[in-house]
């Protein structure tokens, strides 16, 4: 009895090990490891500034690290079908929680994005991202199989419901990410270029609408366009942090400019990383991000299950868009946008959510599953 169990367990692990995509796995693990390392470096100065003990953020991040790794590896064992089932149920739960943020969410820096859960601030929209990806992929794939199924309409309605809530939180960056996920999924599921252009125009229209109706967006865009006029304290400090780097950086923990950089452990963690590790290592981090996206999408080319393609492309889009927005805003290529850097930034919700997303990706890219079923 025990022997059988042992062997079946061993078989599962061996199968997992030989089927898992190791490029993706080790890229993700190395980014997480780097993120923990950076939290050690970046967060004490922020903690001191807000008068909590120096290791406050590090302790919290480590607290989330092992559950996050567990979730990532655990999810990669699951079959696509199980993932879909879990995701549909979890989607409903987190969607309700997201609505909940509007009414009793705690306010941090002027936005209602968090609900309190067992003493931790929980950001439902972070978790909703991978769940939304799976649910929409399922709907769109079903739409291909069953002609009468109004897949595009249903997924659009889901998106609009979420968008309305995010607009009111407000969390414009998250809204852009959700839009990008659905946009890519539409694109890959074979929507006509004409319809895609219309969606693109609608997106641009929404962005212009946000500029004129959301005050902080207006302010940030204006600040970006006329840096002489507005308060560009954060961007100035971030650029100074980058410029202190050079090829090799100041060395771990030796950064000087990061001390004056607000959000050095979250939105601007790339600046901290650059200052201490220099162009070579920090460039490597960006390269690893690119590698995950490139490799993941390339695997999709060999895939012939639309559900799989849509889920992995959606997740890669989520990671990619978030990473690109975060890095471009800290390097002053776009207006500042508070968005975490996946795997690396401090933040429990962000880490657990991206770990779950990565777990899904790892599971779907295991080659045997799509060929033999369960």
């Amino acid at each position, binding site marked *: 009895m025990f022997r059988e169990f042992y062997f079946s367990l061993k078989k599962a692990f061996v199968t997992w090990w030989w089927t898992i995509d190791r490029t993706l796995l080790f890229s993700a693990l190395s980014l997480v490891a780097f993120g923990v390392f950076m939290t050690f470096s970046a967060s004490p100065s922020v903690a001191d500034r807000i008068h909590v003990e120096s290791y406050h953020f590090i302790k919290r991040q480590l607290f989330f690290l092992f559950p996050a790794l567990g979730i990532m590896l655990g999810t990669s064992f699951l079959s696509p*079908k199980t993932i879909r089932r879990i995701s549909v149920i979890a989607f409903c739960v987190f969607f309700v929680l997201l609505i909940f943020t509007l009414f009793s969410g705690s306010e941090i820096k002027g936005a209602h994005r968090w609900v309190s859960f067992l003493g931790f601030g929980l950001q439902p929209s972070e978790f909703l991202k991978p769940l939304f990806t799976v649910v929409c992929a399922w709907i769109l794939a079903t739409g291909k*199989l*069953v002609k009468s199924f109004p897949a595009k309409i249903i997924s659009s309605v889901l998106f609009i419901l979420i968008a309305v809530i995010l607009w009111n939180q407000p969390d414009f960056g998250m809204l852009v990410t959700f839009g990008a996920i659905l946009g890519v999924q539409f694109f890959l599921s074979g929507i006509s270029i004409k319809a895609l252009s219309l969606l693109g125009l609608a997106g641009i229209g929404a962005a212009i609408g946000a500029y004129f109706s959301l005050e902080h967006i207006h302010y940030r865009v204006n600040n970006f366009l006329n840096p002489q006029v507005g308060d560009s304290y954060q961007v100035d400090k971030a650029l100074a942090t980058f410029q202190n780097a050079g090829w090799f950086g100041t060395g771990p923990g030796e950064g000087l400019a990061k001390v004056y950089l607000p959000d050095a452990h979250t939105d601007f963690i790339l600046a901290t990383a650059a200052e201490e590790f220099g162009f070579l290592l920090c460039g490597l981090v960006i390269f690893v991000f690119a590698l995950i996206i*490139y490799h993941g999408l390339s695997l999709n080319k060999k895939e012939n299950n639309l559900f799989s393609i849509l889920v992995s492309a959606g997740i890669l889009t989520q990671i990619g868009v978030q990473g690109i927005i975060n890095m471009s805003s800290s390097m002053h*290529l776009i207006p500042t946008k508070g968005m975490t850097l996946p795997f690396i930034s401090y933040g429990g919700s962000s880490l657990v959510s991206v770990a779950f997303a990565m777990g899904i990706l790892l599971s779907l890219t295991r080659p045997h599953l*799509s060929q033999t*079923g369960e």
Partner: protein
Amino acid sequence: MTWFKKDVFYPVGQEIPFNSKNRYTSLDKKTIASTSVGQWRLSFLIFAFSLAFFILISRLFYLTVIKKKPILITKEPPAFMMQRGNILDRNGVILATDLPIVDLFVDGKFVSNAQTETQKLLEIFPDLDFEKTYKKIKSKSRFTYLKRNLTPTEQYAVNHLGFPSLNFSTREKRIYPQNELFSHILGLTDVDNNGLSGIEKAFNRDLKIHHKNVQLSVDVNVQDMVRETLLKYIEKFEATGGLSVVMNVDTQEVLALVSLPDYNPNTFEIPSKDAFFNKASLGVYEFGSIMKVFSVALGLKTGKITPDDEIDATKPFKMAHYYISDYHAKNRMLKVPEVLIYSSNIGSSKIALMAGTENQKEFLTDLGFLEPLDIELPEKAHPMYPKVWRDINTATISYGYGMSTSPLHIMSGLSALVNGGLYRAPTFLLGGNKNKPLRRILSPKMSEEIHYMMRAVSDIGSGKNANVKGYLIGGKTGSAEMQDERGRYISGSLRTSFIAAFPMNSPKYALMVMLENPKKSAETFWYNTSGWNAVPCAGEIIQKIAPYLGVSPQSELEKPPYIEAAYVIKEKEKH
């Protein structure tokens, strides 16, 4: 509703292997068709993402390697760098600085005996209310302010009590050690340490972000002497307000600028609109007879008159329904210097009309009177002048009605008139004028002729009450009726002003004094024109600041023939 039928619907993840085309169902074909559409689309997506990451790595390379700017380690403690920079006067005296301020708060978690703690605290702060403080200490709240702005001694005493529940929080506070002295120049900051007005606003970026000090051209001693004297005369004549500006005529640096009433930037009270208003840089006024100096200069520049000429002021003349007449009418031919000495409206109108409307407009533009000044302060005046400039405007503007400009405009114009004829916009920064363009508005010879005439006004004309012996003051008075908010002249209420430069053998400094609505009194023989209030005020200011500025008493100028003649006529008329 066909889509949930068991025989049609394949739950995803349970797909049939697509190895052979024969094994496809018709529904599978659609899926495959869609994935084959996806092939080029996937390539496109890969390309887009790769491009984005390539841009990011290039940008990283540009910032970290190409634009590398290492931070030098300084000995300054890190907290210090968060401070807003200081504002200094020309000698390095601090006019505005940030100081750390300590507030006392109680952490309810660590209170052991609220009664004792309250009693001990009250020994240090007798002004605290026992009941209120006791309540605050007893509440279990983790953060309650007990007292703000502690002195170091008080902080030491609280520390000495040794209660773990009593803690301090520090913050930065903007302090203006000179109180109201520089209120209009420096301006204010808000609670977020952003400049709201004045230099604080103009140099907000340098002060706040780069933590740089800003050194001004003003001099704390000159400013203090000017303000003290002006305040004294405002009180003496019950004026509603006033202003004074001192400027170096060669560098156009502002040495002092006082606008009264003013406010104390250290108090939390919001200043009244009147007190907050910088009359010298933001206010626009009709200056009256002061403008005649510029009209004579115009006449000289255009070559229409020479100092030896005579102007017919025998009788008032009529122009477009206006009678232009003189306040101290001489009813005779006036020599050009006499137009200034007796402040003749007729004389100056005729000179301006001779020069012509176009030339007048051009000259006033050259003097910068018609445009906002190129100064550092955000409070910049927009001059007002007639849209359609007719001959009647030329005449009235020549003696200071029909065109409004700011006192700083007049001061920079006056500097150009007396410094040998070179105009440059004024500055509030030490040496801040080096890069501003210079332009010639008058020849050195004409500038010198102006020196003699202004000196005569101070010696025997309306400015003689400011004739401090030895400093060779030259000046011109002006008294203009004040206007109400709808632009109507208020009869009897005057805005009296005096512009002066000294020493007239080679002018170094220019000064302006303006009083708003000074009252008549027996002491002034029931006059309230400039000569009785603004002029003696200016005299007293010069008497105080000239020695400080290193101007030593000089012997009287040698009079050229045209000035000598005016003195002779004056002597004759006395008898």
